């Protein structure tokens, strides 16, 4: 009985003291939460990589793994909504300090902070750190290129990361094409075109029509953009001289911007590639591909060939510089488009230069006709929808768009609408 009582008293003493301590602990915890911390450490494994590195005692990678798992759980639980990005940024910095080669930590860190959280700069900072730490692989600078180009719209930065990515040991061949695409969008036509010439020569060397097709189309696209930029400069000069917008590209031919300017010529490119593919006994470019563009320039065929057999690096891709130089041309007046079709002005867009890129305003005839077809289809779908609402043909385009519809057609002229049939037509291309 005495033993039972002493035991009971001990248990009671335990619950009483434990109860008091838990009570005060609870009060203290509430006070802690009321005070803003100097640094939000609740989800961190360590304040910094340096500190964690010391505590990890050579088990750095293991510590990085556990922080990595913690970051995944943390992000998976709450995402980045209503969250300060700094703690999770610090966590990824710590992980990558502990294990600088942890490729996925950089990529996932950017995904969490940049893509999901919307904090592009710190996300890109992580990727930049990874670019130099994981120095043999293309993936991290490629991700950085993506962020800089598509998310931050910083093309110069994107080109820089892209160039790094393309030089990595495991870089796939399409990286150079993507970098060239950014070069061109940044107005670096020489560089972009040069890279596509390289892609084309690789395609011819490998006798891969698919690769040739991509490279040819990209080169043609670059030439069009290059020429469109020249047209845009000439159009500005024309407007400042005459006080009105140009109505056709012919009006621009005498502008200073269109005198003795350099551009690339598709005919020269094709001729040069064929000339050197022949010298290396390669099949060259297929007839079906050649049919899409202007004929190869006979003058290039006539020019003396650079001796290829004596070179140590004798191969078709090694001729990139020669083919690139062959493809350049100095023009005064209107340039020739890669397809041979004349350039035209999209008259629906020339008045809104701030809204559209030069290549969307100045384009070869075929491309412009395609744009016009798309616009016409769009108009017709609007009319059809309105017709469904009204249960009759709209009386005018104003009844469709609630405003006077006086937009010019891309190829000039005014849109024609027949209320009796409900059909919209183009005055410049009635057959469309």
């Amino acid at each position, binding site marked *: 009985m005495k033993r039972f009582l002493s035991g009971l008293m001990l248990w009671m003493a335990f619950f009483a003291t434990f109860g008091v301590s838990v009570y005060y602990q609870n009060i203290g915890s509430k006070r802690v939460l009321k005070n803003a911390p100097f640094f939000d450490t609740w989800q961190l494994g360590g304040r910094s990589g340096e500190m964690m590195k010391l505590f990890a005692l050579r088990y750095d*990678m*293991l510590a990085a*793994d556990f922080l*990595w*798992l913690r970051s995944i759980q943390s992000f998976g639980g709450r995402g980045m909504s209503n969250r300060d990005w700094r703690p999770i940024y610090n966590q990824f910095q710590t992980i990558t300090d502990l294990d600088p*080669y942890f490729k*996925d930590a950089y990529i996932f860190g950017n995904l969490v902070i940049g893509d999901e959280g919307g904090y592009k700069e710190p996300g890109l900072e992580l990727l930049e750190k990874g670019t130099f730490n994981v120095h043999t692989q293309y993936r991290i600078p490629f991700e950085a290129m993506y962020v800089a180009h598509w998310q931050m719209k910083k093309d110069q930065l994107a080109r820089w990361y892209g160039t790094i990515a393309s030089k990595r040991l495991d870089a796939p061949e399409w990286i150079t094409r993507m970098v060239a695409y950014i070069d061109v969008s940044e107005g670096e036509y020489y560089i972009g075109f040069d890279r596509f010439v390289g892609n084309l020569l690789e395609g011819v060397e490998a006798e891969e029509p698919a690769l040739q097709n991509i490279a040819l189309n990209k080169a043609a696209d670059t030439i069009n953009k290059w020429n469109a930029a020249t047209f845009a400069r000439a159009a500005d000069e024309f407007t400042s001289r005459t006080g009105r917008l140009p109505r056709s590209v012919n009006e621009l031919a005498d502008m200073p911007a269109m005198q003795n300017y350099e551009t690339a010529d598709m005919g020269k490119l094709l001729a040069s590639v064929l000339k050197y593919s022949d010298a290396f006994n390669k099949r060259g470019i297929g007839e079906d591909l050649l049919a899409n563009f202007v004929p190869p320039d006979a003058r290039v065929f006539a020019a003396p060939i650079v001796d290829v057999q004596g070179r140590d690096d004798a191969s078709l891709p090694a001729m990139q510089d020669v083919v690139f130089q062959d493809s350049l041309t100095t023009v005064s007046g209107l340039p020739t488009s890669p397809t041979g079709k004349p350039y035209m002005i999209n008259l629906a867009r020339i008045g809104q230069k701030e809204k559209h890129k030069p290549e969307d305003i100045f384009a070869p005839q075929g491309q412009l006709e395609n744009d016009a077809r798309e616009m016409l289809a769009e108009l017709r779908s609007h009319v059809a929808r309105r017709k469904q609402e009204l249960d009759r043909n709209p009386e005018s385009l104003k009844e469709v768009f609630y405003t006077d519809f006086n937009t010019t057609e891309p190829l000039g002229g005014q849109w024609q609408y027949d209320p009796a049939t409900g059909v919209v037509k183009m005055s410049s291309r009635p057959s469309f």
Partner: protein
Amino acid sequence: MGKIIVIAFNTFKEAVRNKVLYFLLIFAVLLIGFSTVISDLSIAEPERMIKDLGLASIDFFGFLIAVFVGVYLVYNELDRKTIYTIVSKPIDRTQFLLGKFFGLLFTIYVNIAIMTFVLFAVLYFREATQYDVMSKVIWNEDASGKYVQVQATWLYYLTAIGMGIAKSLGTMIGVYVVPLTAGLMKVVLMSALSLAIITAFAIFYSTFSTPTLSAVFTFLTFVIGSLCEDIMRFADKLAETAGGVEALVGPNSIKYWFARAAVLLVPNLAYFDRRMEAIYGAPDITAAMTGPPLLDWQTVVYGLSYTGAILCLACLIFRRRSFK
């Protein structure tokens, strides 16, 4: 030599009766086995998690065994007075100590072998039981386009376990080399070499101090040995801030020379750490540096010579020790 082997064998028998050893081993094996569960929580590189956790477990639990078993080896002989029956026989004290060392080292290496075997088996079993690998074997598409089960799942698991064991043994003896486990044996062997140094230190400290102090000293040796690079950089930073070693005065001068001495005298255990190399492959990590601190053969020479030096020191002290 014969006497050393006999003492070593007896030490091994004594060590395997130690319950602490089993607790540590079971815990390590469970941890390595559990790593496959932890790896599933990761959205990338799950094998890396298993390798990291497994290799770190092998290294760290090897260290714990060296400390907890090593520091009691000499002490127990003295405490139980069994040392008198040994030293009264024609056995040199050096032979006794070396026998103890090799016995303990053998115990540690047997444990490392078991842990390594489990790690490899876990990796191979996990590889074989991935859904895409499994489904190709268990299910087959018949003529009508329907999938039919052609093998029982339990039988597949049983086969995977058997194959995992066989492959694991093959990898350990070097006849089965695949990218999944490439380079891991080197990490384990280097860990084993570093544990030889730690074991030598544990024995060395136990020749002149109590087990608790020996454990503390060994642990501190492990800490300093693991942080050698940081201590070295700390000393460099002190000198750089002062504007050169000559400009160091007062406490900073003492700190500098203490750090330099520690780095020089305590083994740099980071030299034996090849985990990063095994996980990422040598080209990825070495190209950024001027080269590894020590080449493989240099590391082996370093490890052996360091172990030898500490053992010599331990023997010298033990020869003069009074057992009264």
